[in-house]
């Protein structure tokens, strides 16, 4: 909300400087968004008169002027403005002045042989607009020699504050003035006492046909008026806050909207059909052509004001064009009503109409103000437009707003952390308009002023449906007691300034705090570090992407399709973070960086339930490994992704020996080059593999791309068992190599498993150290070479024992896989 300082001073008697006012506004919760002081840069410019205007002797397009800056000492000024003429008044800048529009500081000079001792200014040169067609041409009565800024009313800084949704009262300048006065910045000037003498019966009557549409309404007509432009002071104020002056009647309603936070509306009586204005709910099919030039289709949930012809206003939100006041209006009817804030908010949102009236009604206006506001508005309209007032027409009753609240003084410290003397607290509340109903040493009960609907309001609770009823009731009772008190604590502390509350460090239960992360949370952090340590760059990407892209990576159920996406390419919750990383790889490749290793700890979305959101550690490697003399570059492959996934699982304490890899990875992978890491038949811990060629083509990823997902939620909590003693046998291990010829379709894992299981006592490790497939072997066969570590425990193994265990190993492998030992 914006207001010029002069408007504030209309309501606030204060000696405080602008700076003090701004600091106080910030302190008391009326945050200053900005101050526009249009006059500051123009302070030195004076109103001057052109006494002579001659053609420049040496330049066709220039004139030589003699200018009186106000002291009678004529200055020679060379000027190019076509409109410069003898006798005109304009604005002069003297040497040393900074010209905002050109950014230079003025110096005395000589232009083609004629001295130029000053400068006559255009609006653009003063930074007051784009007009550079000539120098400013002031009216003849502009006072010679005076400050231009003062005369033009530009020395009135415009303050903009942001008003929080609870403070409807501060959406009027008077409410701001009241707060500042309460904070000690002066006194609130009383409103004038209007005297309106009704001269005739009201030509229109109110009818509240549906109490949902309006609680209470007053109206009064003025006849015999002449509507025209409003006076300069009013226009200046409205222009200052960004409003367009329209005509005196409408401008007065705006004066009340912004000055008192009390929106009014004026109907042109001659344009109203019939003699009744009805507050009712709209009917299906009714429309309103509103003052903003738009047509609205009304619904039965909208409260309207109707005449015999139909809807003439969306009550409390916007008036209708057909019955608005213009220059031809000779009789107007002022509406001053109270509406249900909730209905206003919902209607306004339904039709997306944001008006100043709506902003005030949905926050709540002062329910006690209408009679006075109506009289004040009547008086001002008659003052500006002439005419005589009718009697007041009224309907409905003002809603009961009177209520009280109690503050226990100890709560100022107990809740607010501030030791505030009781007298100070009570004084602050009284300055805000609260009146003391009862007070003792421990507490005070105050009546809440009509304009503070945010204090001790009766907004309903919305308790969790699953609460135990007794518990819910106790909580609700407690809230009814504590909430109004918290409101009062806030008011007292607000005026005092929260900076005065001494900070206190949180008490801790011990010097060494317990772990902040659960085991599961710590796993996620560790997974991120493991991947970064493996050379991957940790990414954070949007959890939604284009549905078409998402579909390449998995299911895209309609329940996860946004109803109101901000962009068409951000409309579907992603099935896996791999999707985001693949898009990132494509973007990087397009910038000339095809070789990437990216990881993300992010969410995959399966359905909208909390369980449908999976925590996934995902990664993607694309392109080639780095070139290095000692380590040749090669394309990344599926085993890089497998290595990443297994490294995460190992770091998170998963028992690796029991894991199995199956070849049924999701469809976004290459079906023959991907796998699923399982713990037991049901638990899927990870997937990995090369991205499907079709998907790479769709995303424009030219080179190889490998990805993996580790499902962090699926990893069981590691058992907290103390480690046993390490295995430190007294005998040297011995290693034997075996090479098998086996069908290429047999998983290597099967050989390793068979060899490990051949003699659980002696075989402690089996490693695959060579794999050969080529034309030296029969078609469809590969050679796999295993190194088996044998660990004797009781005694060194004899040759016979070694032969025996080697035989067991070969037999086990042959039996499990159909392999043949290579000679």
């Amino acid at each position: 909300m914006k207001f010029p300082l002069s408007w504030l001073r209309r309501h606030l008697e204060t000696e405080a400087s602008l700076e003090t006012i701004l600091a106080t506004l910030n302190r008391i919760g009326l945050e200053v968004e900005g101050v526009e002081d249009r006059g500051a840069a123009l302070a030195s410019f004076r109103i001057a008169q052109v006494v002579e205007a001659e053609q420049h002797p040496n330049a066709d397009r220039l004139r030589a002027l003699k200018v009186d800056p106000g002291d009678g000492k004529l200055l020679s000024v060379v000027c190019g403005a076509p409109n410069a003429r003898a006798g005109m008044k304009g604005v002069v800048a003297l040497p040393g002045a900074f010209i905002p529009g050109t950014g230079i500081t003025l110096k005395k000079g000589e232009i083609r042989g004629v001295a130029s001792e000053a400068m006559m200014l255009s609006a653009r040169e003063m930074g007051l607009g784009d007009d550079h067609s000539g120098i400013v041409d002031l009216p003849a009565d502009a006072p010679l020699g005076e400050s231009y800024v003062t005369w033009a009313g530009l020395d009135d800084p415009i303050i903009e504050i942001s008003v929080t949704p609870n403070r409807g009262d501060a959406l009027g300048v008077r409410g701001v003035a009241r707060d500042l006065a309460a904070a000690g910045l002066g006194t609130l000037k009383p409103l004038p006492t209007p005297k309106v003498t009704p001269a005739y019966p009201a030509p229109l009557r109110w009818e509240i046909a549906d109490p949902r549409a309006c609680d209470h309404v007053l109206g009064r007509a003025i006849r015999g008026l002449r509507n025209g432009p409003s006076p300069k002071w009013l226009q200046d104020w409205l222009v200052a806050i960004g409003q367009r002056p329209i005509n005196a009647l409408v401008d007065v309603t705006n004066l009340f909207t912004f000055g008192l936070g009390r929106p009014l509306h004026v109907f042109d009586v001659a344009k109203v059909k019939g003699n009744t204005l009805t507050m009712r709910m709209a009917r299906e099919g009714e429309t309103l052509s509103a003052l903003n030039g738009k047509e609205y289709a009304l619904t039965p949930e909208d409260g309207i004001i109707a005449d015999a012809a139909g809807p003439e206003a969306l009550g409390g939100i916007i008036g209708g064009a057909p019955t608005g006041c213009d220059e031809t209006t000779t009789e107007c009817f002022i509406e001053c009503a109270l509406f249900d804030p909730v209905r206003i908010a919902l209607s306004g949102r339904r039709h997306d109409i944001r008006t100043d009236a709506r902003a005030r009604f949905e926050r709540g206006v002062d329910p006690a103000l209408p009679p006075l506001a109506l009289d004040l508005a009547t008086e001002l309209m008659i003052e500006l437009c002439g005419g005589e007032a009718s009697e007041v027409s009224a309907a409905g009753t003002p809603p009961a707003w009177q209520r009280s609240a109690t503050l226990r003084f100890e709560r100022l410290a107990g809740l607010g952390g501030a030791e505030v003397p009781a007298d100070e607290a009570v004084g602050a509340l009284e300055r805000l308009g609260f009146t003391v109903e009862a007070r003792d040493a421990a507490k005070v009960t105050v009546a809440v002023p009509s304009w503070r609907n945010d204090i001790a309001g009766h907004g309903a609770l919305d308790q969790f449906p699953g609460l135990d009823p007794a518990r819910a009731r106790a909580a609700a009772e407690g809230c009814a007691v504590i909430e109004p008190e918290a409101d009062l604590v806030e008011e007292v502390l607000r005026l005092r300034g929260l900076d005065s509350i001494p900070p206190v460090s949180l008490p801790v239960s011990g010097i060494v705090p317990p772990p902040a992360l659960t085991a599961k949370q710590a796993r996620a952090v560790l997974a991120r570090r493991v991947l970064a340590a493996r050379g991957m760059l940790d990414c954070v990407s949007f959890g939604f992407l284009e549905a078409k892209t998402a579909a390449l990576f998995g299911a895209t159920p309609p329940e996860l399709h946004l109803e109101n996406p901000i962009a068409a390419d951000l409309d579907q919750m992603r099935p896996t973070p791999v999707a985001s990383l693949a898009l990132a790889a494509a973007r990087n490749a397009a910038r000339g960086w095809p070789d990437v290793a990216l990881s993300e700890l992010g969410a995959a979305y399966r359905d909208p339930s909390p369980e449908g959101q999976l925590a996934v550690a995902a990664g993607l490697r694309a392109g080639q490994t780095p070139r290095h003399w000692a380590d040749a570059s090669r394309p990344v492959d599926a085993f890089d992704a497998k290595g990443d996934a297994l490294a995460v699982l190992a770091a998170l304490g998963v028992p690796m020996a029991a894991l199995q890899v199956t070849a049924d990875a999701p469809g976004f992978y290459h079906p023959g080059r991907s796998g699923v890491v399982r713990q037991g038949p049901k638990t899927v811990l990870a997937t990995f593999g090369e991205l499907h060629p079709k998907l790479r083509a769709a995303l424009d990823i030219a080179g190889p791309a490998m990805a993996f997902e580790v499902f962090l939620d699926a990893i069981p909590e590691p058992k907290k068992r103390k480690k046993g003693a390490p295995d430190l046998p007294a005998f040297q291990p011995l290693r034997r190599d075996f090479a098998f010829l086996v069908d290429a379709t047999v998983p290597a894992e099967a050989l390793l498993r068979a060899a490990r299981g051949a003699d659980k006592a002696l075989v402690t490790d089996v490693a695959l150290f060579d794999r050969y497939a080529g034309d030296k072997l029969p078609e469809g066969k590969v050679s796999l070479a295993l190194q088996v570590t044998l660990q004797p425990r009781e005694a060194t193994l004899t040759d016979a024992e070694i032969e025996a265990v080697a035989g067991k190993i070969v037999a086990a492998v042959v039996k499990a896989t159909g392999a043949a030992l290579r000679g």
Partner: protein
Amino acid sequence: MMSDDLAALRAETAEQLAAAADLRAWDAVRVATLGKSGKLTGLLKGLGAVPAEQRKERGAALNRLKGELESAIEARRLALEDAALEARLAAERLDVTLPPRPAAPAGEGGIHPISRTFEELVALFGAQGFSVAEGPDIESDWLNFSALNIPDHHPARQDHDTFYLPAGADGRRPVLRTHTSPVQARTMLGQEPPIRVIVPGRTWRADHDATHSPMFHQVEGLVIDRGIHLGHLKGCLIDFLRAFFGIADLPVRFRSSYFPFTEPSMEVDIGWNRKTGQLGAGGDWLEILGSGMVHPKVLANCGLDPREWQGFAFGMGIERITMLKHGMPDLRPFYESDLRWLRHWASDPLSPPSLAEGI
């Protein structure tokens, strides 16, 4: 009615397409049918010679046939390509049970600045006795708004620019949480006080420009206990801000404000130099977070009796404090995964935040 020669061409082409076993054979069929001197092309060329009274009918029939043949030829191409791809994929099969290499490919890895700030938040609030609570990104309307004293008509709902998902069985539309505050309600419903949690997490609002991202991150704080007051809130935040920014005398200012879920509410500013961006000096103020004493209605909505329990809550933007701390100028690259940006701002995974080593 299709004349006999057209029906014959259709049958013949179908037969040839079925017989085309690879793309080369397929292309021969295509050229022989639709090519410059293809059979269909020939028939079309011959249309001029047809008697005028039959020309229209035959022309229409030819066009129909052309459409049919074109789609049959295209369908066969797709089928052959699919078959070729399948054959290729089958031929490319790897034994994925092979053990991976013992080491990862060389590369410069690193931790994203948002993740880094997450860890710093955990370390610094952890030292003050906080633990980390979490909640899902997709929340009910009640948890995101109603529980927090933001009823349906509240003006604050409009300010939140909420993303909605389709209504579920209960007729309510789930939302992408607009703040981490729903986890306040989740925590109060899930455990008895005393409560001392922070909630770092993803949040979403339909706003996208130089300073707003539709997905961003917040950290929520919630302390519920007996005798926790506004002074504790100030102390807790001052302790955090000074440690986080590493400025022992960082000026911190508290301004009265309003949030539906706290009362009294306050906004917190830190001192900085608007021109240089330097924190801790310069006489200007920068708004950095919102906070307040938990509103009695929020407590009561979650089953806590405000006569017995009180506490404070705060929320701040993780990107914002990260950008301020490191002097990062632009929000948008945070989510773009640009290799060059990530390498520049990433931190070393082997040097996680530690109170012992300094943060």
